[in-house]
């Protein structure tokens, strides 16, 4: 009897619609976030993450309505990230029904925002997303740095030190994405996941690069992650959440079924 490791499908949304389509045969409208969320809930997803990639102000308003609609029908934790810049954004999302917000670039530009959010709404609502790339040459100790702008812009910040700082500032959880692996289907950067998971007291979600069920299992067993996040392998029906959990359970990992 113990805490289960979590599987979290991540949905990209723009203007309140799921983009990069969710391809379930049973869905009437693959772009409807409520239908996608309901489906993942039925399949046994432990949480859901929505990443808003809307560029416009109108898109963000639509996002709030989307969060309201999902939260009225799906009773598992919802995290929303993307474009959150200020305390007001956080409050609006939480009031709409998000349980957690995920902050990325804004934390890099203004680390004190993390303190402010943790102080006013609590660490339990606050995920700090860390996008990192490997910067060490072969043969020297591994090192990763924080990158912004979808992994294009280096910041010079050491990823492990940054993770420790964010945990100290009040992040309740860290979402660690390898920008080297993101979209490659080559598996998580397990060294990165483990380096951070072993050095912070808060839970770590591994992200970036999942191609197979064994990648998810490795994120837990070798990466020491508390949760694993994936998008495309679930959206395109390559694997079901239940298959991922069965694979993890067979490897001795405690999961919720």
């Amino acid at each position, binding site marked *: *009897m*113990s*805490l*289960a*490791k*979590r599987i979290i499908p991540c949905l990209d949304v723009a203007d309140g619609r799921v983009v990069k389509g969710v391809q379930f045969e049973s869905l009437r409208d693959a772009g409807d976030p409520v239908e996608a969320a309901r489906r993942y*809930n039925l399949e046994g997803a*432990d949480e859901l993450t929505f990443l808003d990639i809307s560029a416009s102000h109108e898109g963000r308003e639509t996002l709030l309505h989307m969060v309201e609609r999902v*939260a*009225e029908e799906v*009773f*598992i*934790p919802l995290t929303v990230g993307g474009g959150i810049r200020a305390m007001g954004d956080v409050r609006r999302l*939480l*009031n*709409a*029904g998000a*349980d957690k917000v995920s902050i990325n670039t804004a934390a890099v530009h203004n680390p004190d925002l993390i303190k402010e959010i943790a102080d006013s*709404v*609590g*660490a*339990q*609502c606050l995920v700090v997303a860390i996008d990192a790339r490997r910067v060490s040459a072969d043969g020297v100790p591994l090192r990763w740095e924080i990158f912004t702008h979808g992994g294009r812009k280096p910041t010079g910040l050491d990823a492990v030190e940054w993770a420790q700082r964010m945990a100290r500032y009040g992040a*309740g*959880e860290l979402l660690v994405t390898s920008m080297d692996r993101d979209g490659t289907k080559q598996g998580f950067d397990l060294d990165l996941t483990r380096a951070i998971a*072993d050095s912070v*007291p*808060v*839970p*770590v979600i591994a992200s970036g690069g999942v191609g197979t069920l064994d990648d998810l299992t490795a994120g837990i*067993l070798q990466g*020491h992650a*508390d*949760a694993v996040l994936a998008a495309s392998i679930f959206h395109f029906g390559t694997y079901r959440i239940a298959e991922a959990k069965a694979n993890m359970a067979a490897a001795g990992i*405690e999961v*919720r079924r």
Partner: protein
Amino acid sequence: MAGSIAIVDYGMGNLRSVAKAIEHVAPLGTQVLITDKAHEILNADRVVFPGQGAAADCMAALKARELIDPLAEAAKTRPFLGICMGMQVMLDHSEENDGVHLLGWFKGAVRRFPLGVDANGLALKIPQMGWNQIKQIKPHPLWQGVADLSRFYFVHSYYCAPEDESLRVGTTDYGICYVSALAQGSVFALQSHPEKSADDGLLLLKNFTRWDGRPD
């Protein structure tokens, strides 16, 4: 007879999820009201007392809204459900914020999780965040249909240690075995979030919306 359910709003956390989950499972026609007014709480047939955040802030918010006595009155006289911080503040005292006096309805303390390791020898993370099991150590009407050892969603760094063993209706393991659900009379309280615990959580809430407040 659908009745009414008051959800106590004292500025500590988002109550929308709780309200939506209750509306989802309550008998048709039930009035669900989010309120910080004593008379509305005392007029309701059932009361839900949620909460998240820091213990000191919660107590300050309850005092500022003059809810301490009305809540005690409501808890004695109708079905009353505490969730998360709403459970913790029912005890005497918390270690959080260098020590906080709580409502003191039940003897006992709220303590921080000790440092511990999981089955693989890795340090346990704090907060505990995710789905853990509740062992039903005593029958209760709110467990009806909820399988023993069902998983609920937890997010917390502190846990309740009530002294009176007869209060304990559910326990959970996280490095230590702690009381994750307690009940006495018309009060039931749990550390996890039933409003975020999928079908099992909804079932527990549904049971609450039909509970007459008797412990058996």
